[in-house]
């Protein structure tokens, strides 16, 4: 039983949604909804906050798009950019970083800075899943901590959108694990000064990100359908050899089990967060 995490799945995992009929369209014009299978004109998707117009499915969006939905570009001052230093010299990590940097145009998985949301100044942070699964290594950890420290200095609330499916970043070994402690402590200091932290869980928020700063918000919100949890569903299935309940680890499931405050659709997010910030000013 020491090797509880060992072994490959003995059976196939079946996606809950039925596979819709595929239709051929030019790649760059249309996107097929992962949820209902409908084809959506890309321009329409962009206009609709990346929500499926027919089923409301929340498409994953980049950190930059997220920022643009919440604050004006001139209102966002990013913290000093940091880049990873490969602390345990993990094979292939340096290349993985530069590849991700090239693909996303980001330095690492987080974008954090001082912002104004509907007139309320705050520290706003977004974790981008497209950068190594939105995992937290030294850079993300340090950026978050600097964000909370800045907020403490200036007595500002903090809003973080976490989309870290990767949790703590394996390639930085123990250094990633320690970022969990470091960020949790930064939240603690900020919180003990009576300041507000709104944590928004976006798809997916798992592992070391969920088990540290992301679940320490005064208010925890989630986008519909976002996967939220500690161990990934595949690990849970393999370890327990049990069939996972319908909707396991979705935001709706977390809400039902009392783990989050509310589910907020993306089109309502700005007003929702804006209102909360206003009430805590």
């Amino acid at each position, binding site marked *: 039983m020491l090797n509880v995490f060992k072994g490959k799945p003995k059976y196939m995992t079946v996606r809950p949604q039925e596979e819709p009929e595929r239709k051929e369209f030019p790649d760059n014009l249309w996107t097929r909804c992962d949820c209902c299978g409908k084809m959506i004109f890309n321009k329409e998707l962009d206009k609709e906050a990346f929500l499926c117009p027919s089923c409301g499915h929340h498409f994953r969006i980049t950190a930059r798009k997220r920022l643009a939905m919440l604050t004006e570009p001139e209102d966002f001052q990013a913290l000093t950019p940091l880049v990873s230093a490969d602390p345990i010299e993990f094979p292939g990590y340096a290349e993985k970083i530069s590849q991700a940097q090239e693909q996303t145009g980001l330095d690492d998985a987080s974008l954090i800075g001082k912002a104004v949301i509907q007139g309320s100044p705050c520290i706003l942070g977004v974790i981008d899943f497209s950068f190594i699964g939105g995992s937290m290594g030294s850079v993300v950890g340090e950026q978050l901590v600097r964000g909370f420290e800045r907020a403490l200095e200036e007595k500002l609330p903090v809003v973080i959108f976490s989309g870290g499916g990767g949790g703590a970043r*394996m390639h930085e070994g123990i250094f990633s694990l*320690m*970022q969990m402690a470091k960020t949790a402590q930064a939240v603690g200091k900020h919180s003990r000064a009576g300041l507000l932290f709104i944590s928004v869980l976006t798809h997916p928020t798992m592992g070391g990100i969920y*088990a540290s700063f992301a679940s320490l918000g005064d208010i925890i919100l989630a986008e519909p359908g976002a996967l939220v949890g500690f161990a990934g569903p595949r690990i849970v299935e393999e370890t327990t050899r*049990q069939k996972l309940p319908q909707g396991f680890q979705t935001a709706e499931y977390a809400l039902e089990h009392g783990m989050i405050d509310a589910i907020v659709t993306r089109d309502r997010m700005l007003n929702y967060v804006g209102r909360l910030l206003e009430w805590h000013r």
Partner: protein
Amino acid sequence: MQAFEWEKPVLELEARISELKQFVHSSDMDFTDEIKTLERKASKLRKEIYANLTPFQRVTMARHPKRPTTLEYINLLFDDFVEFHGDRSYRDDRAIVGGVALFEGQPVTVVGPQKGRDTKDNIARNFGLPHPEGYRKALRLMKQAEKFGRPIITLIDVVGAYPGIEAEERGQGLVIAQCIEEMSFLKTPILSIITGEGGSGGALALGVGDRILMLENAWYSVISPEMCATILWRDSSRAAEAAQLLRLTPTDLLKFGIIDDVITEPLGGAHRDHVTTGLQMRSFIRRYLATIVKKPLEVLLEERLARFRQIGKFNEKAMADL
């Protein structure tokens, strides 16, 4: 006792020595010098073997079925102990034990994950994989220590928090975060010792200490070697290679400044000699507990936070671009 593959040369040599001794016993011939030479050789070989263990060999040592479990360490380290149960909310998770103990006359709160001794015990203790209520119990006991000004000793040996359906439903991630956060601000000295496995968040949840020590054949990392191998190569049997990459040994972690000291084990591992292991640990606990108990609480707390604050390796972008 179960032998490891890499111990076999020594064991063979030892077998030859005892054969020779038997032979001397039953005949008149004198082999004293030969026996002495062989014994010296065996001891040298043993030292060589154990000084050069690969990271994964240490991982297997940390998982040795005869290695002391937390309750056994408690028995070895303390003069008295009363166990307290339950999280006051849902149930008593037997995968984590805790209570008040006497360390050389001083009451301390001790908590730690508990693996089973045999199959039946293992089932009762969920193979040492704690549920959220286990961590809630640990946190409850640690807060109690704070209230009564008792130092806390955490003994950590856990491959990870339990990845189960109910564990998720009751907030496994949330409770780990709460443990980490609340431990960080507890107004009482905390000594953490990784005695065996230090697997990810499930270990860190009890590992936010003022001093962090590690036994010589323990490991501590963000992920188990098996899981890491599964992610990298979709093959958990390549755990030995993964263990090499993760830099999870006490030597590495001491160099990285993550831990403060390494507690030497008897040659061949803690499982070979529980009593000596216990004595060795006692002397480390005595020394480190004395240092942290002496410090004013404000200083202790400030240093605890500063310790974790500075962990991380990165470059400012401008400098990296030069």
